[in-house]
């Protein structure tokens, strides 16, 4: 028999295999690729991970309760279209850019809560299986988005949208200047060469919400109840938890994150498109699962999901860096997913001998 202390250390490491995997991944691409280990590439990874990461954070809550939210895919497009449409309409009506952008974002975030509310009611009160309820909503969101945008992508957004979506928190020319948020203008070409842009805005927004909800899941009563419902819905109910209400909130969190992703899409691509995000929904589920969650519920963490999303983003950009076709990424993601589930199934339980 293995020494129990050693065994627990082993289990802990095994459970966090995805951290090690991410490290190895970055190491491998750095050695094999060209200029992979650079600030630009790493920040590219962060930016390109934002859609999947946002969807995955919301999805983590849903999956921990034992459900799944497929609607988030087209929710990105739906809320993105709402956001873009409101911005364009307000701009045409002559409001200031700041106003148009702020109201557009707020509208998307508010409207985005509704599908989550409906999902939650369907799942919790009307006992519709989550897969069906949210898959139905997936279609509804897409259809509504196409109606709103009249089947054409919405362009001509306020001109400040691009700089926000492509901006950074810090701009720094070593030894010369340091700015937050506003890109310095009128720099000489030499200074421009030395300009370091740090922390992309989109990633900053994503990380702020990820941290807040990671805290909620890990440290608060709401988080604890989320795990309890996934562990045993009967136990949660009999312990006096209002399970139905809780589930509605969880599905609303998921659609809120989809709306954030929708807004992020508009800021990044400066357009609102109905099909946006549909390709990311499964990536989000994969990120959650390789981050240690179980589709049976009761398990998972935001930190794990974060690393899971980074593994995926690193893989895609790393393969691109190696000039390998994207279909290799599908094979790799498929393998990682299966390995993740196998490790989850066969890793033993952590048993403490004393408090």
């Amino acid at each position, binding site marked *: 028999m293995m020494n129990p202390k050693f065994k627990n250390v082993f289990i802990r490491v095994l459970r966090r295999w995805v951290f090690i995997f991410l490290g190895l991944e970055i190491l491998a691409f750095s050695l094999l690729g060209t200029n992979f280990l650079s600030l630009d590439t790493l920040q590219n990874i962060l930016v390109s991970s934002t859609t999947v990461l946002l969807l995955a954070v919301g999805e983590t809550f849903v999956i921990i309760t034992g459900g799944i939210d497929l609607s988030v895919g087209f929710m990105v497009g739906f809320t993105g279209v709402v956001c873009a449409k409101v911005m364009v309409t307000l701009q045409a009506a002559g409001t200031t850019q700041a106003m148009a952008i702020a109201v557009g974002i707020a509208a998307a975030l508010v409207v985005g809560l509704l599908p989550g509310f409906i999902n939650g009611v369907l799942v919790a009160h009307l006992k519709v299986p989550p897969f069906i309820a949210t898959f139905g909503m997936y279609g509804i969101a897409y259809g509504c988005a196409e109606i709103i945008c009249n089947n054409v992508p919405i362009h001509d957004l306020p001109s400040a949208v691009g700089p926000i979506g492509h901006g950074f928190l810090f701009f720094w020319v070593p030894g010369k200047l340091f700015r937050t948020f506003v890109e310095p203008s009128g720099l000489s070409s030499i200074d421009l060469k030395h300009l370091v842009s740090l922390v992309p805005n989109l990633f900053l927004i994503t990380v702020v919400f990820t941290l807040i909800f990671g805290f909620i899941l890990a*440290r608060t009563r709401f988080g604890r*109840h989320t795990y309890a419902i996934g562990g045993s819905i*009967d*136990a949660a*109910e009999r312990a006096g*938890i209002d399970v139905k209400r809780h589930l509605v909130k969880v599905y609303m969190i998921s659609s809120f994150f989809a709306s954030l992703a929708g807004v992020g899409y508009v800021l990044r691509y400066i357009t609102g498109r109905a099909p946006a995000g549909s390709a990311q929904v499964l990536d989000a589920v994969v990120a959650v699962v390789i981050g240690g969650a179980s589709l049976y519920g009761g398990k998972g963490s935001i930190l794990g999901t974060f690393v899971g999303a980074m593994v995926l983003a690193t893989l895609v950009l790393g393969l691109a860096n190696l000039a390998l076709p994207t279909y290799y990424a599908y094979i790799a993601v498929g393998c990682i997913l299966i390995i993740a589930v196998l490790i989850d199934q066969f890793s033993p339980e952590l*048993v403490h001998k004393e*408090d």
Partner: protein
Amino acid sequence: MEPILEVRGITKRFGGLVAVDNVDMKVYPGEVVGLLGDNGAGKSTLIKMVSGVYCADAGTIFFDGKEVKIDNPMQALKLGLETIYQDLALAENLDVYSNIFLGREKLKRFLGLVKVLDHSYMLTESRKVLNRLEIEVPSLRNRIRTLSGGQRQAVAISRAIYWDAKFLIMDEPTAALGVAEQKNVLSLVRTLSSQGVGIIIISHQILDVFSVATRLVIMRRGKKVAERITADTSPDEVVGLIVGSIPGDVPNGDGSDVKLSPVGASHAG
């Protein structure tokens, strides 16, 4: 003295099946009442209406002298009415102390702003209550999944007694326990009753019930068929009442006595 709990004419139907049919029952403070009956007699359904898991289709519940509506488990818990369920109802993915405090977590302020879980408080308090039961659980940070049946039962019991219940319902509290542990639980029942807690105990171990209960209520096929003072009856009579070989005091609705037939006997407890 007023009963702490009284149910009058309580009824529960599942489709065409009447699981509990017009049952009356009283429990006084400090009294231990044994609720007995065969599988499918309606014992668990009856207590689930009291604990808020099921809503009664008819009948009234009085608690502490007042008529109460118990529509969900939280209302029962708020009244001081705790239940240990036959299936224990634990979240297996959570650790011991999280289960003991589930739904009633102890919180503390984080940076003076948000309320977060107070793990160390819950851990120490859980340790105290488990020690009372003298059942060894190595670490309260272990998930329920890793525990033995007896340890799980101890957690379920601890959860119920931690909150200073006025009333305790125990559905098969000793089923998963070894002999020594069963003794602990039964002596705990006596201690709680001496403190004035009203208790309903359901168990297939008739001798256990005889050793702690002062009064027995016997159910058969959804109906209360007899009520006995423990000192005035014998296990043989009670078994006869349970299986129907001795006719009960209360006739069936149609005036005939209960005949053994599979109809209606299929619904679990």
